[in-house]
């Protein structure tokens, strides 16, 4: 059973192509106490999900190979990974499409550090509540 303390150190897989967004996400999420790994395209993201088993996946929609929404659907369709929280963080105004794809949350770019960290915290809290932890 995970605890809030463990969630603070939760592993986050960020699927992002933009080097500047990646650098900022890493800085603010690590500052908030999370561990951060990266994938630069959709297929790589799915492979990393299976490999490292992140608590959360944060993905842009516009990533090469397989778009972020397809990555989300694949994760949610697989019983082995469906428990992973997916946050779509995109330049596109696509909240409805993200929710339809099974995402747990949506944030629009550009990056707002306060918003990003609070959103991650909220999603982890919701997940804990749903699991009765």
């Amino acid at each position: 059973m995970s605890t809030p303390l463990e969630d603070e150190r939760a592993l986050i897989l960020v699927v992002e192509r933009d080097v500047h967004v990646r650098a900022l996400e890493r800085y603010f999420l690590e500052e908030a106490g999370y561990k951060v790994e990266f994938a630069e395209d959709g297929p790589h993201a799915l492979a990393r999900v299976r490999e490292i088993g992140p608590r959360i996946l944060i993905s842009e929609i516009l990533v090469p190979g397989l778009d972020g929404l397809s990555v989300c659907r694949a994760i949610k369709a697989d019983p082995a990974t469906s428990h992973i929280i997916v946050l779509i963080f995109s330049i596109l105004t696509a909240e409805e499409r993200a929710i339809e794809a099974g995402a747990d949350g949506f944030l629009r770019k550009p990056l707002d550090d306060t918003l990003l960290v609070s959103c991650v915290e909220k999603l982890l809290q919701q997940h804990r509540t749903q699991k009765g932890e």
Partner: protein
Amino acid sequence: MERVSTGNPELDLILSGGFPRNSINIVMGVPGSGKTILVEQLAFANAGPDCRALYLTTLSEPLPKLVSYLQNYEFVDINRIGTDIIYHSLGEHSLRDGLSNEPQRLIDEIFQLITKHRPRIIIIDSFKAIADLLPDAQAWRRLSFDLAGVLGAYGTTSFWVGEYTWETGAGPTEFAIADGIIELERIQRGSRDERYLRVAKLRGSDFLDGNHAFRIAADGLHVFPRFVTPSAAPDYQPIRERLQTGIAGLDAMVQEGWLRGTTTLIQGPSGAGKSMIALHFLRQGAMDGEPTLLVNFQENPAQLRRTMDSLGWDSDHLLRPENIDHLYISPVELQIDTIVQEMFRRISERGIKRLVVDAIGDLRKSAYDPSRFDDYIYALIQHCAATNVAAMFTFETPRGYLDHPLVMTDVSYMSDNIVSLTMELGDDLHRGIRILKTRGSAHDGRRRTLRIGSQGVTVE
């Protein structure tokens, strides 16, 4: 679309509400054109605990000097410097030690500043100075692209200030990257400077195009949005009320008075009595309890007071702002945008019911673009009609000119009423008056005698 206010309501109006949030904007202009004041005013207007502004200076101006001069402006609160607004000299770290060898150092420094201060507004002044430190255009293109990337990744609205001019070429790299470009211009006309502001680009947003006059005051920029001629006359309900000028003989020539909301052009040579008729018109308004506005360019307040006193009028009473509000503008300081904006402001704020512009020819001289003078007059006349202001414009015709034809044809066809004054110089000076046109009203078109006596004008 979310906007960042400029801290200046008129400039916000030009920008359809302000700069789009999270955009990159260039503020360009020659030295001394007001670029730094514009962005400083914006920074102080927006900055707060939840919206920190980061002001980055480069090698163009030492930071202590910039901050020192800044304190002269009323919008500056020095207690907020260092908390809400952070000043930082990029030159001390990335630039001075050889940007050309390691341009990435600049990106790294800005990244560190963003993560440290988390600013919502970033100003780089001067941005152009950075380009001058790089060996070639290709290196600059890469650096500015990277810089746009890091600024765009974080939710900041950025301003790149630079001494750019259009003469520098088709537009440097940063012009293509920027979402918005504001150009400040300073033009010398005779002994005075005129300042204009223009939006050259504002991606994804509407804006008011053209040159907008502005001036710099202790409280920042005062911007006067360019008049846009209404494509159609405003919808309004005219009031069929007759107004008197206080000159009984003249009022009798137009069915006992002039219709409210109409514009009357009084034309004639110098000394024919134009200004006197206009003063009677205002005085009668004041006596009837109507706030009036006199805009003139030749007769200063002391001279006006003397004129009224010589007629036996109570100038102290009449020249109270609630009776005759006097807007005197020295001919040296004329700038039509600022004058017309000020007229509109006073008409609105003081509920002006009668307006005199003495003389319209002086106003024409102040037009930056003389071909657009008619647009200003049309807008002014329409505004008066819609707000039921009775307006009177005087126009001086050349000496030797005795009667029509009209000289200011464009203004005359826009005016509802035209009164022509004449002077015949024989053994005696004989002044004449004739009504050439009244719109929506009958008039006596015969020529009458006009006399100027110790108590003012009479018409026989």
